[in-house]
C-alpha cells in the first residue's frame, strides 16, 4: 500500500507475487501504456469515432482496476457505455477530458511512488 489515497498496489502484488521488482516492472509498463491510451481516447474523440472510443475505454478498465483506481475505472466505464449508445459530442468531450485529467494525475502520482520505490530501496 502506498501513502497515496487513490492508488492501491495490493491487487497488483496478489497477481505478480511479493517480488518488488515485478511490481516496479508493472508500474513502468503502466506508465508507458497510459499516455498511449490517453492519446487514443483523444484522437477518437476528435474524429467522433465512437467505436474506437468505446474500445479504448473498455481496454483501459482492467489496468485501472488492478491498481485500485476505482474512480478512473468508473469514468472509463461511463465513456464505454456512452460511446456504445451515442451521445452529444460536448458531453462526451467533458467525460473524456475528465478521464484524461485523472490519468495524468495517476501517472504523476505513480511516478512519485516509483521514485519513492527507488529511493527507499524498494520498500513501499
Amino acid at each position: 500500500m502506498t501513502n497515496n489515497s487513490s492508488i492501491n498496489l495490493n491487487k497488483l502484488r496478489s497477481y505478480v507475487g511479493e517480488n518488488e521488482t515485478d511490481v516496479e516492472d508493472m508500474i513502468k509498463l503502466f506508465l508507458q501504456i497510459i499516455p498511449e491510451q490517453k492519446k487514443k481516447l483523444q484522437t477518437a474523440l476528435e474524429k467522433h469515432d465512437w467505436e474506437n472510443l468505446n474500445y479504448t475505454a473498455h481496454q483501459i478498465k482492467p489496468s485501472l482496476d488492478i491498481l485500485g483506481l476505482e474512480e478512473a475505472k468508473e469514468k472509463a466505464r461511463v465513456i464505454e457505455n456512452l460511446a456504445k449508445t451515442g451521445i452529444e459530442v460536448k458531453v462526451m468531450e467533458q467525460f473524456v477530458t475528465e478521464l484524461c485529467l485523472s490519468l495524468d494525475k495517476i501517472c504523476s502520482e505513480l511516478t512519485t511512488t516509483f521514485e519513492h520505490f527507488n529511493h527507499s530501496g524498494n520498500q513501499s
Partner: protein
Amino acid sequence: MNAFKIFVIEDDPFYGELLRRHLALNPDNEVFLFSTGKEALANLHISPHLISLDYRLPDISGMEILKRINTSAPDIPVIIVSGQEDINTAVELLRMGAYDYFVKDDHTKTRLWNAANKIRENLQLKSELSELKKEVEKKYEFTNILKGNSPEMQRIFKLMNRAIKTNITVSVTGETGTGKELVAKAIHYNSSRASKPFVAVNVSAIPNELIESELFGYEKGAFTGANTRKIGKFEQASEGTLFLDEIGEMGLNMQAKILRVLQENELTRIGGNTIIKIAPRIIVATHRNLAEEVRKGNFREDLYYRILGLPIELPPLRDRGHDILVLAKYFNDTFCFENEIPLKTITKEAQDKLLDYTFPGNVRELRAVIELACVLSDIDFIEPSHINFNSTNSLSNFLLEETSLAEYNKKIIRYFLVKYNNNVNLAAKKLDIGKSTIYRMLKNNEL
C-alpha cells in the same frame, strides 16, 4: 510431463503481462503472451495446453478465434476472459465449446489459476492412464499371462488367437483356479477392443435381487433408494468386453432377461423407457458343465446356445504335465523379486513332490504352495519339506487322479506300509487283506 504451455491472448499490454506473470508463478507453466488473434493463431503449432482468450481483440473477434481453434486444435481448452458481463455471449461461447467464461473482476486471477491447475492435473492423469493402459496391454500378452508349454496350453493359445480376431462370444470352462478370468482379460486386451473397458461381473457374488440392477442399471426414482441414475455393467462394457463369471449360478428368471438383451443388443434401464443400444463382446465362464445343467433344467437351452460361441475348456493343472514346474519357477521368481529376497532354486526332490500332487485348486493352489515355500525356506533352495499341501478335501484330491483301481490299490498299500514303518503284518491287518498279497506285490516290484 514437460512444461504446461499456456497462451494468453490479450490486447491490453498491461493486463496481458499481468496474467502472464501471474500464471508463470507456477514453475510448471510456460506462458506465451499474444496481443492479437492472428499472432496467436500463427503460433498454434507450439501446441498450448490451455488458451486464455480475451473476447474483444482488435483484429479478430473472440468468437471467430474460438471457431478456428476448435477446427484446427479441438482438444485445447479455451477459457474466455472478458470485460463484458453479457450472459448471452457467454452462453453462446460455452455452447461453441469454450472451456469456461470468466469476467475480468477480482476473482479472475484465482479462477484462471485453479482452471490451469485442474487442466494440468487432468492432462497428467490422462498421460498416466495412457501409460498404464500400455502396461496393462503388455501385461496381458498371452505368454505373459498364461505360462506353460504343454500341448494342452498350446491348444488354448490357438483358440484364444481365433477369439481375438472377431467379436464372437467366448465361453470359458474349467475347474476353479485354472485361470478363466485371465483368459477373458487376455482375449480383451489383445483384441481391437483393448482401449475400451473390460467389465467383470461375478454372478455368484451378487444376490439375485440385485443382479438385474447391476447388469442393466436403473433410472433415478426407479425404486426406493434409487437416488441417482445408475449405469449398468452391460452399458459400461458397451464398446468393450463384459465378462460374466460363474454364469451357471444365474437364476432362470434372470437368464431369460439376459437372453433378450443378447439377442436384441439393446436394453432398458430399470424404471426407464428409453431403449439403449449396446454392443459389448461377451465372455462367460463357469466351473459347471452347462450342458449337464441344461439337461437338469437349471439352465435355459436357448441361452446355452447363445453364449456357447467359441468354447475354451481350460485343462486342470494335473493334466498339464511339466507346466507345473514352469509355473512353479515363475511363481518362485516373481515372489522372490517382489519381496526382494534372494532367488531360490526348487530342488529335484521338491519338483518331484510337486509333480506327484494333483492340485485340486489348480494354478491358484500351486501359487499359494510356492509362495509359502519361499517364506518357509531360509536357504537358497526349496526342498520337499518346504512344500506343503493343504487341500481342503484330500479324498477329492485323491480321487481326482482318476487312475485305475489297481493303481489306487497300490497307492493305498504303499501309504499304509509307510505309515506302519513297513510292518507288512500290521498293514495287512489294517487293510483286512492277506499279508501274502502285499508280499507278492513287493516281490513283483509293484509297490
